[in-house]
């Protein structure tokens, strides 16, 4: 997006993205990603695996985090790197809030690159991910 680079500086916050975890979404994500592990849509199976009930896919959470970055940038092709460590589980009925801000901007070989630190928490304020960051180019 034109003019974006001049608007982004350390401390610039991303607009929050809010997502809900429900069974239709987990089933659709299983189909879309090809990850058919039953712990993500079969309660009996998830209980037998010691999880109590169905849990959401970690990579679905990473998809939400990525969306917060790409829709802030406008151009998904600007993402150079995205990293997530999964520390919490998502459950049916959860509402997740994803946010973050620019930590620093460095000069790379193809122009400026922003390091964006990201968060994803559930409705109780519990972290679902940590050490979560994206490196994004400010112009393609």
């Amino acid at each position, binding site marked *: 997006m034109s003019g974006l680079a001049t608007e982004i500086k350390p401390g610039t916050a991303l607009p929050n993205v809010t997502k809900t975890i429900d069974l239709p979404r987990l089933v659709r994500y299983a189909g879309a*990603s090809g990850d058919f592990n039953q712990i993500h849509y079969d309660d009996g199976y998830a209980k037998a695996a010691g999880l109590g009930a169905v849990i959401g896919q970690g990579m679905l959470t990473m998809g939400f985090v990525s*969306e917060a970055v790409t829709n802030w940038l406008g151009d998904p092709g600007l993402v150079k*790197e995205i990293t997530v460590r999964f520390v919490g589980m998502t459950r049916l009925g959860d509402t997740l809030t994803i946010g973050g801000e620019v930590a620093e901007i460095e000069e790379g070989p193809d122009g400026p690159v922003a390091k964006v630190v990201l968060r994803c928490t559930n409705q109780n304020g519990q972290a679902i991910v940590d050490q979560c960051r994206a490196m994004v180019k400010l112009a393609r």
Partner: protein
Amino acid sequence: MIDQSFVGYQLRPIEYEVCREKIREYVEAIGDPNPMYRDREAARRLGYSDVVAPPTFAAAFSALPMRAMMADAELMRRMGIDPALVVHGSQCYQYTRPLQAGDQLLVDARIDEIYQKRDMGFVVIKADVRDAAGKPVLASITTLIVRGAGK
């Protein structure tokens, strides 16, 4: 205890073609409204030749060699891993260029590291994804945690 001799083990490479309808399924599951993933004209306005895939669409193919590995009961037994105890610890994607509909990809993965911490085993799998011309598209670094496999 996971068998350390599997560090460097090459997984079977897998071919994958990025297609518009799979991108659509993916963004509808995520609930991402960006028109660049669905509408060729919106993608063209930003200089792309076809619809773009979101960065994490890589999940649809980067894990294929790893899933095949996990489904190989004999290999899992030799490695000392119970697939039922495996959880996804962390994920990193490094992109050389954006993913687009029509990309013909080759996913080439290997076991990069095996280590133990407390009562957990860690297996790091690195996948290099290249296009039909052999040019790099992205790299995926996946850390799997094997519960109870620390000793």
